[in-house]
């Protein structure tokens, strides 16, 4: 398993270093554009410092920031026993050293993500819409996918490369803006020193400032896409039930509700890209996730077993290519793992009303509402800031005491 992480790391490292080089080049050109004599190195220094500071912040409080930005709330087992159980099952199956914290996001759009640079200190967050829509097997598939992002150290890589992307965007923006503001100062300076060479550096810097964020984004997305297949493969290995994840992915992509709290940098963290490009054709380069239909088809054509080899075979069959998705060390482990059958607890869902009600109830539980089921059939949900100690059911008049 460790080798699998190592090899995964090496490939991503190449992409990660490319992003780093882009960042440093950016610093160099900007520095030179302002101060031709040795300014390039000052620029590199500043680019590095900015990236370093942002990385430190994200290392120490990245998960907290991400969870806060997405509006996730930590929940106890009482709020959603099933979700809690499933996370614990996946913890055992993936041999995580500690139980991840469980978060619910107050959103109707179904989606999920994982955070935690170290597996000892990780979290899994799912939206209320996801809980309302998926049955047990499907939810297990999604949680398994998220847990494998933690195990494969994807969260760590996506956090650091996300920060790098953020730094590049920030520096380019600052440079381009300062050109508009300080244009006069610059032109007087260039006329004093050797004009032409300086002019070329200036142009290169501007072109780079425009291209670097685009380039960095493509690299960031490339890192992200590669990891999705591996996370799917690991999810099957953990659950031994590819159909669960497959039908969960279908349900998530069928939903027409948009996730309100996602943005370009946080998008790759989710199980399904929350920023759906409506009718966009150029999905190959600019997408953070592989197309869902393809992920589903690969999962559905797994028939032999739940091992990495089985996923790679299914992948080769669907994609008609032999590009290795699973590092060779993962393929070497050939101990057969049989597939599981569906669990016999079908939950009849899909009713619009029921779904909306369930989502609402989950969110009320998260927000500490208490619930009373009156004997007349009326359900009373009381907010935590309700002060009275008793209330009468408006339907049948029964007195309920609240302690």
């Amino acid at each position, binding site marked *: 398993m460790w080798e699998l992480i190592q090899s995964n790391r090496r490939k991503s490292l190449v992409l990660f270093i490319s992003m780093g080089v882009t960042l440093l080049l950016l610093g160099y050109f900007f520095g030179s554009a302002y101060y031709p004599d040795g300014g390039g190195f000052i620029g590199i220094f500043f680019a590095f410092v900015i990236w370093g500071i942002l990385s430190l912040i994200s290392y120490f409080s990245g998960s907290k920031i991400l969870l806060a930005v997405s509006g996730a709330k930590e929940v106890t087992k009482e709020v959603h026993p099933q979700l809690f159980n499933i996370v614990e099952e996946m913890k055992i199956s993936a041999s995580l050293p500690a139980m991840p914290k469980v978060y619910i996001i107050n959103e109707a759009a179904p989606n999920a993500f994982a955070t935690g640079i170290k597996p000892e200190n990780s979290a899994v967050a799912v939206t209320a819409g996801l809980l309302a829509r998926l049955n047990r097997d499907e939810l297990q598939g999604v949680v398994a996918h998220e847990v494998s992002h933690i195990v494969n150290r994807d969260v760590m890589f996506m956090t650091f490369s996300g920060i790098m992307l953020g730094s590049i965007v920030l520096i380019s923006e600052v440079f381009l803006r300062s050109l508009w503001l300080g244009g006069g100062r610059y032109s007087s300076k260039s006329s004093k020193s050797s004009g032409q060479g300086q002019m070329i550096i200036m142009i290169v810097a501007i072109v780079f400032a425009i291209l670097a964020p685009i380039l960095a984004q493509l690299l960031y997305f490339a890192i992200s896409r590669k990891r999705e297949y591996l996370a799917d493969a690991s999810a099957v290995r953990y659950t031994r039930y590819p159909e669960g994840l497959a039908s969960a992915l279908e349900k998530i992509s069928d939903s027409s509700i948009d996730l309100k709290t996602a943005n370009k940098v946080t998008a790759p963290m989710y199980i399904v890209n929350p920023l759906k490009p409506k009718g966009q054709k150029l999905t190959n380069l600019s997408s953070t996730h592989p197309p869902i239909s393809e992920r589903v088809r690969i999962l559905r054509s797994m028939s032999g077993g739940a091992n990495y080899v089985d996923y790679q075979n299914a992948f080769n069959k669907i994609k008609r290519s032999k590009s290795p998705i699973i590092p060779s060390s993962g393929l070497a482990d050939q101990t057969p793992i049989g597939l599981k059958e569906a669990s016999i607890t079908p939950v009849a869902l899909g009713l*619009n*009303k*029921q779904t*909306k*009600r369930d989502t*609402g109830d989950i969110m*009320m539980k998260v927000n500490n*509402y208490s619930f009373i089921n009156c004997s*007349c*059939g*009326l*359900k*009373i*949900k*009381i*907010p935590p*800031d*309700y*002060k*009275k100690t008793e*209330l*009468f*059911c*408006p*339907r*049948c*008049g029964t007195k309920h005491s609240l302690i």
Partner: protein
Amino acid sequence: MNCPVCKEPLVVLELEQVEVDYCTSCAGVWLDSGELELILETDEDRNRLVNLFKEATDVNEKSYDCPICGKQMRKYEIGEKGKAVVDKCRKNHGIWFDKGELQKIVEFGSVNKENKIINLLKNMFWKSMPLAENKISLNIDGGNK
């Protein structure tokens, strides 16, 4: 969410998978627009409801603020003039019924049996509204013990 009249927290009541917010102090009811859409599934139903509403002009009842957006709500008459006045959010967040209004609407609704909202409200609050016909309507609805 707080009651627009007494500013106290509203409790949520659920019956037949529909929710309303209810004030235990003044017995007023808030009907969220999302819930209205759940009850009235077709456009036809929704139009029928809209047609019931007429903007009230000379009403000297105190105006309240929408519990969701905090903006002042507008008064609407339901049915004939002077029958019942409700408060509706200008941004369509929902409708507020005072206790008296609710009672009038339920009475009014007995004329128009198909109206799902009124049936639901009637079913939800039959005990707290001591109307003679409530007992009858409960029998008609049947099954809801």
